[in-house]
């Protein structure tokens, strides 16, 4: 029977549905292209664009140059090629932004769901979140970095050590907003009839959370996540600025921005380039999050 055989067909791959909806969101496609371009640029850029080795005397002569064919983005106050530094800096900044955001989102969502779903955990977990919110962030980060930097550096090397430490520090100090949003959402979802229906079927709490609650808190989490990337990049630059992040000669976008600030009135392009890179990253992540949220919702997907 043709009718029955048609019905037998497996569901059209949900991934393909999601992808086709995602593609119809112009902003999301634009964001994906820009972010993809940035990632590719910072990954293979430093091999394609190798700044020429200059002696100290040459470098001092060539400091504060404007854009030219030799230095497409000019040179900084020490005669270093800005393009080369931007590309290297991007690797760190993008990695810090993404990883720290992922840690914060995973942690925040986990705590939010536990607090929202299990009544007994609600009080303790939310007071914990309040406590973290009340802590002054910068002093806390300072203490963490002071205490652990050398120990971690001796274990896995100074650069990777600094990266791990910064990412963890930013991650565990920025999950609170997400967890609050998620908790609120879970509290309303928990009383929805389809969750009650699942309970009446005898579905175990773990499955209810994974199947009915988690997919339905995706949208607020997406919004929090996209904003989190920007926050993480900026916080990293603050830390580096305070001398607690990466070593001073180690470029990140935030660091370039701060270095450029002193010369902003004379050489504004020095602030513009890293600023533009951070803004583009944030903007594209934002649009990708937007598109992803729509693509994951079957009610919107149909349209």
């Amino acid at each position, binding site marked *: 029977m043709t009718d029955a055989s048609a019905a037998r067909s497996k569901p059209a791959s949900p991934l393909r549905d999601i992808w086709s909806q995602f593609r119809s969101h112009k902003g999301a496609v634009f964001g994906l292209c820009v972010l993809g371009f940035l990632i590719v640029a910072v990954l293979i850029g430093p091999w394609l664009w190798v700044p020429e080795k200059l002696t100290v005397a040459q470098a001092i002569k060539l400091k504060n140059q404007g854009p030219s064919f030799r230095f497409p983005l000019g040179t900084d106050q020490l005669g270093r090629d800005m393009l080369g530094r931007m590309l290297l800096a991007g690797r760190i900044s993008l990695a810090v932004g993404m990883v720290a955001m992922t840690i914060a989102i995973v942690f925040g969502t986990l705590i939010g769901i536990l607090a929202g779903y299990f009544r007994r955990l609600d009080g303790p977990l939310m007071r914990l979140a309040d406590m973290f919110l009340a802590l002054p962030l910068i002093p806390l980060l300072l203490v963490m970095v002071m205490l652990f930097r050398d120990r971690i550096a001796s274990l896995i090397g100074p650069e990777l050590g600094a990266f791990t430490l910064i990412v963890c520090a930013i991650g565990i100090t920025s999950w609170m907003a997400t967890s609050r949003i998620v908790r609120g959402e879970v509290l309303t979802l928990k009383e929805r009839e389809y969750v009650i229906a699942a309970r009446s079927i005898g*579905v175990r709490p773990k499955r209810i959370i994974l199947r009915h609650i988690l997919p339905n808190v995706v949208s607020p989490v997406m919004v929090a996540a996209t904003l989190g990337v920007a926050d993480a990049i900026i916080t990293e630059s603050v830390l580096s600025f305070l001398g607690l992040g990466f070593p001073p000669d180690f470029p990140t976008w935030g660091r370039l921005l701060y270095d450029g600030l002193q010369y902003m009135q004379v050489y504004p392009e020095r602030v513009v380039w890293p600023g533009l890179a951070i803004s583009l990253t944030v903007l594209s992540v934002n649009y990708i999050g937007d598109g992803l949220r729509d693509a994951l919702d079957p009610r919107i997907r149909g349209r």
Partner: protein
Amino acid sequence: MLDASPLPLVRVRDLKMHFPIYAGLLRRRAGEVKAVDGVSFDIMPGETLGLVGESGCGKSTVGRALLRLYTPTAGSVVIDGEDVATLSPEALRKKRPTMQMVFQDPQASLNPRMTLAAIISEPLDEHTDWSGERKLDRVHELMDQVGLNRAFANRYPHEFSGGQRQRIGIARALALNPKFIVCDEPIAALDVSIQAQVVNLLEDLQERLGLTYLFISHDLSMVRHIADRVAVMYLGQIAELSPRDDLYARPLHPYAQALLSAVPEPDPVREATRKRIILTGDVPSPANPPAGCNFCTRCPKVFDRCRVEEPRLAEVEAGRFVACHLYGDTNKTAG
């Protein structure tokens, strides 16, 4: 099972469901809402018990407490030989397939992010270790039973009309071959034309699968159509529990009389002579019910004893249980 006097499938005794109220700065327990306050009834296998009453009288709470979606404050709910109110979580999970629920709002009771096949097979995922193929067969069988096209299996709930969604909800409830289904106002959110379809489907399924229903509704004419016996609830208690025909022909409890006088009559001649009993006042708060009979503040036939002594549900005629002092003399011996 004995044919002469079959055991009731569901036996509810003195079910109480109180929700605490917390108030003040320290969130102290300031009192409780007595949503259900001492309800007892039996449902025979294959029977449909209608549960009617106005909004907020505790109908839905009874339904949910029966399936232990709320843990009852007191009382026992024996379903098919086991007291659901006190089962351990794991035993309760094993018991779940026997008793299922059809919800009021078919829009809200289906997860918008799951396909129809995933929704209907969820009970199977949870309680069987069948292969995907076998589950899909069962899903298709269920869809046939409730009159849904098999080709819809991969669609999402928002693509369906209200009546179709309610069919999905019914298919999900049927997936594990339950004996007892609580229908919590299954037709209240539907169009009138669709209501009849869904009710007929429920009756059909009852006939074919030997189901037992607790049919919660505020639509008295629909209850008249589907129920064998009807319980009228007021403020957390059962006012009257009677066979359908007796109740609709001659309600005994003053509240049941008032409630049934509100049902419009399709025959215009009889409609013209229909006398409505208009109750005055509002329903008292279930957090602070009146002393004596719950209905004494609004009852047209109230007398002194009503304000002092709480009437008990007692059999006043064959098969008719009423909680009212008006019939007190006849049941002196009974209670």
